[in-house]
């Protein structure tokens, strides 16, 4: 029920954003990011409610992960819009909201059962909680960097391109350390406690590493080689496509230790 309300609030935010996009450059959307924030708060309430019910942090199945992911994308959209005010790029806010909405749609589909159930033994670890939460917070920054890089590739306006390029770099620079800590560091420690090995080359681990390498390449190319332009935007877009594949594609196409995630 709460997830449905959050979904409709996000939908309303998207409609308002579309209206303001069509109204033209000088119109300022003062509402939609507050709606996005409200939806995020509702989604975090779901996480808290389920956590109390199962007496564990509720990030141990696909539905809970999607809810958490969607909530954090919403929070980052709000922070971005709140800080940038009129300078916020509408397409980035709009694209980010769309991604949060799509994730919620997937959460409501049969591939993500809503059953509230305590975790199986392998998932009963606070290293797992750190692993999942940090990974999704990092990936939420990557989601917005994806939208920003995508618009960079579409737009012809040079001034806007410059702004988008900087925004993409900043989002990845913040998301990368968080993602590294979550996906690789905490993930490795959890794997060690659960299975006795830091790393097993399980498909999910391999794809998390691939994603990390892509963003590593982006940061080194951008900050050391000073690479700016289409190629760097393409790497940022690829990074998020790989992020999504690590989350969804591996679960459905490749089996391994993370088959329950």
């Amino acid at each position, binding site marked *: 029920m709460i997830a449905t309300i959050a979904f409709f609030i996000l939908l309303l935010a998207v409609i308002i954003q579309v209206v303001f996009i069509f109204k033209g450059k000088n119109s300022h959307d003062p509402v939609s990011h507050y709606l996005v924030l409200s939806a995020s708060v509702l989604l975090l309430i779901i996480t808290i409610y389920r956590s109390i019910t199962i007496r564990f942090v509720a990030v141990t199945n696909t539905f809970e992960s999607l809810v958490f992911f969607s909530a954090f994308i919403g929070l980052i959209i709000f922070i971005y819009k709140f800080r940038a005010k009129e300078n916020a790029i509408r397409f980035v806010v709009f694209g980010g909201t769309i991604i949060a909405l799509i994730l919620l749609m997937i959460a409501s589909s049969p591939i993500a059962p809503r059953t509230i159930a305590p975790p199986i033994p392998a998932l009963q670890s606070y290293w797992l909680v750190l692993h999942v939460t940090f990974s999704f917070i990092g990936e939420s920054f990557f989601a917005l960097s994806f939208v920003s890089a995508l618009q960079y590739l579409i737009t012809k306006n040079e001034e806007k391109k410059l702004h988008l390029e*900087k925004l993409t770099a900043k989002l990845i620079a913040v998301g990368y350390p968080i993602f590294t800590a979550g996906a690789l560091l905490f993930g490795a420690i959890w794997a060690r406690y659960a299975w006795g090995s830091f790393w097993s080359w399980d498909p999910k681990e391999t794809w998390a590493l691939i994603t990390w390498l892509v963003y590593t390449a982006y940061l080194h190319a951008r900050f050391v080689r000073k690479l700016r332009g289409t190629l760097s935007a393409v790497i940022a877009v690829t990074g998020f496509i790989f992020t999504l594949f690590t989350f969804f594609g591996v679960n459905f196409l490749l089996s391994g230790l993370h088959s329950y995630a």
Partner: protein
Amino acid sequence: MKQLRFILSIYKLFKSIKLALVLIGYLVATSILASFIPQGKQVSYYAHEFPSFIYRIIMELGIDNFFRSFLFIIPLGIFFLNLSVCTIDRIITRIRHRALVRPGPDIIHLGLLILMIAGVITLFERREGFIYLAPGDTVDLPNGYTLALKSFAFASYTDGRPKKWTSEVVLTRKGKEKNVHSIEVNKPLKTGAYNIFQYSYKDLSTVTLTDTSGNITSLYPGETLTSGNSVFKFVRVSTDPSGLITVVKETGSSESESNDLLAVFLEMQGKNKGTYKLLKTGKTIGSFTVSDLYPHLETGLNVVDDPGFMPVIIALILIGLGLSVTLIQKRGDTKI
């Protein structure tokens, strides 16, 4: 002079970020490929699943175990050299210019180098063994250790999913008995010599049933029994009135001999759904009577001796520290 120039050109090559990016690109591309080819299977699997031409390529290049093959290890070795030279060069340059203001990436690079060294140590020096023990069993481990299983408990949730596995073990060395230790998933036993992980389990319990004609049938967990229109799946033998817990201790203990043993059946109403039925010896299910119950659980333990463990911990701490420093310093950045 010529030699010096050669050494300098090699040094220049290895400190190149371009080389790093090319190697990252290679590692990404080949890892993607390897992720779609199941790893570590029997040779016959690849012969059966792939056309002969692709099967030959997989076998010749070692793609069946890609992350241990030369296709992965050699580029990774070059990457290690590349990262080492870059890190040293970066630190030296910064010291020379007295500009040690952004140490985050250097700490991360150092952590990654130690991590790769730890990976190599683990690859060659890690020893592990998977063992199955029933309560009362003992096994000799290297270096004069003996591991004995005192009891093993399994608990499940009401929906049938596993909740907890607990092995109670005693680790002795040269006859000197130590305390009883408890091992659970995510809670390994850490000793100076070994880390022992709760890895798996086997339920070999049996229920014996007698039908109205006196015929005897025995079932293992997961096997089904048909009586009229009803299908009953035998789930487990439980030692607890709830039907959710089974504790098996070494011979002579009360749990194993108890008259309170229960056979847990699931009366099937669709795939894996139904109503649980708990039956003592002498009770009937359909046209069958439970005549005997025998609880038999075996714990699956993974005994690990990995000298790469400590270097990995040091590396992870360094990477974590480097990431934290980077993130904190990034907060102050206004322009990128």
